[in-house]
């Protein structure tokens, strides 16, 4: 049982998960951003591990990845920055990123390090289910890491069931046919898809992400799920901010209060 499981035991509604890119806007901002998120009232922190070729991401997150890499962020640095994070962070922390940098770090060393510093789960968009089952599941479980799969409006019911069976933590519902990027509206078609998945009574919690940007989209998404994930819109807040802690507080409060 990790912090994610405990969270979803206590809270099934309007869970707010915030994504940001490690080492953005400045290299040293990773931990301060996390601390501000926790004190402002976010429920889950997703830390993006920057990558040169993020194929599931739109321009905002592509840019934050490039800036973070230019700032000198890499896996070793990230782990150094997070080494003591559990002294100030008590909410669940999930690492999100592409498979290649993880493989180059060494998959077992990576999982071990995650456990050591108190990471609760992983989201690896380009790690498909079959490969996960064949090569990674044992390792992730050994080190107490929840794996989160994505589903999209195109994912078949059978496959959603399979993903549900192999998930432990939450399922990441991609809100539309889309790469990441903030949007201001949720369409009828998207709502029909949210309802369809809701009616499947999955055993895992569902968080909806991609295109969630403000209170309105957060509430709409949460109506049909356990909560939602905000990424690009939050990255924009960080990018324009002169006072991170204040602006993060204002933004998070604008969504949950």
């Amino acid at each position, binding site marked *: 049982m990790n912090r994610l499981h405990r969270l979803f035991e206590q809270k099934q509604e309007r869970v707010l998960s915030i994504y940001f890119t490690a080492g953005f806007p400045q290299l040293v901002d990773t931990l301060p951003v996390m601390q501000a998120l926790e004190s402002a009232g976010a429920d889950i922190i997703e830390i993006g591990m920057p*990558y*040169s*070729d*993020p*194929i*599931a*991401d*739109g*321009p905002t997150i*592509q840019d934050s990845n*490039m800036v973070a*890499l230019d700032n000198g962020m*890499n*896996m*070793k640095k990230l782990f150094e920055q997070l080494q003591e994070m559990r002294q100030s962070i008590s909410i669940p922390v999930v690492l999100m990123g*592409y*498979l*290649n*940098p*993880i*493989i*180059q*770090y060494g998959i077992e060393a990576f999982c071990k390090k995650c456990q050591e510093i108190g990471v609760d789960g992983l989201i690896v*968009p*380009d*790690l*498909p*289910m*079959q*490969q996960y089952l064949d090569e990674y599941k044992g390792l992730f479980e050994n080190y107490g890491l929840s794996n989160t*799969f*994505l*589903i*999209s409006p*195109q*994912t*078949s019911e059978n*496959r959603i069931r399979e*993903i549900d069976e192999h998930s432990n933590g939450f399922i990441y519902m*991609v809100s539309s*046919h*889309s*790469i990441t990027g903030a949007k201001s509206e949720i369409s009828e078609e998207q709502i029909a898809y949210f309802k369809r998945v809701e009616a499947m009574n999955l055993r895992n919690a569902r968080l909806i992400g991609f295109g969630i940007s403000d209170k309105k989209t957060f509430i709409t998404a949460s109506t049909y799920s356990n909560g939602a994930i905000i990424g690009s819109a939050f990255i924009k807040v960080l990018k324009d901010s002169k006072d991170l802690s204040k602006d993060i507080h204002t933004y998070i409060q604008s969504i949950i209060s």
Partner: protein
Amino acid sequence: MIRVDEKGFYGKFGGAYIPEMLHPNIEELRDNYEQIVAIPEFQEEFNALLQDFVGRPTPLYLASRLSEKYGAKIYLKREDLCHTGAHKVNNTIGQIILAKKLGKKRIIAETGAGQHGVATATVCALMGMECTIYMGALDIQRQRPNVERMRILGAKVVPATSGSQTLKDATNEAMRQWINNPVDTHYIIGSVVGPHPYPEMVARFQSVISKEIKAQLLEKEGTENPDIVIACVGGGSNAAGAFYHYYNVPQVRLVAVEAAGLGISSGKSAATTALGTPGILHGSKTLLMQTEDGQVVEPHSISAGLDYPGIGPVHAHLFDIGRGEFVAVEDEDAMKAGVELSRTEGIIPAIETAHAIHALNMIEFRPDDIIVINLSGRGDKDLDTYIKWGGY
């Protein structure tokens, strides 16, 4: 045996490392392409277009003066005579028929130098399909004539402005746009790269090259098998096509020629097997040029078609098991080889192809060896580069 397995691997390399959003598309392709390609109607349409539209079979030409110069019997497989000027069109013809059979309405593709973009725009015009080509913003500046060719053919050319703004970024962008348009759109990948089943599918469409070589050699030499086949490797589609029917004929040596750029250790190179390590790029596990942290490194080659940080998984496998001989040719040597071929045989090759010509200086062979060089493309598109280089 060199063969792709059920999970899409050639030995340690291949697979389909894709975001879940692309799973339905890849599954649809994987589950349908072999059947569709096997039906006689598909084969008939494919072969008829290759013959009447592309101009196949392309000649296997005995290059006498080049042969005399190097002391071997050197044949050139004239893919440069394909319509649109390179082998790329063999693949786009196959994929466009497939896309139609899958009921797709729109085509997207990536391009580096613009050859694959032009070949894609061409078949889209041929079939009346909507076509969008993603091209690095930098390449758009470098390859103006091909950009305009695509536009004349009715394609929309969209700049990829992320990262280094070259081929790898154009590929990223095409994948992103496929995620955004999963239902009505087919993505025509231009080389033997990407998630399974693309590498094998593209290789099969290109395998017409070695199929013809076998028949033509049999006629000219009384044997289907040359001693050596040489081809340049960007992603590796012309090489895969030229090697395909020889993969499992061990006495035929397969020579793959990569771009060394300014030199393998110059920091400006695209010699993937020399500089790369196993990793994941564009949906497959393969050899790629990357930092210790697993960030993809920008390659360099004077030829935009070889300017790619990875190679197709089948080539990574050929390298891994020692079935292929890999050499890397520097920019300057390739340019000189281009002029050499122009003056000995009256053929101005694409600069990609010129790398393969120079490889004659790098490998050992005997005077009675039969060597086939895959002449993947013609040099028209590269005139600017030849002129800027100026060493002729």
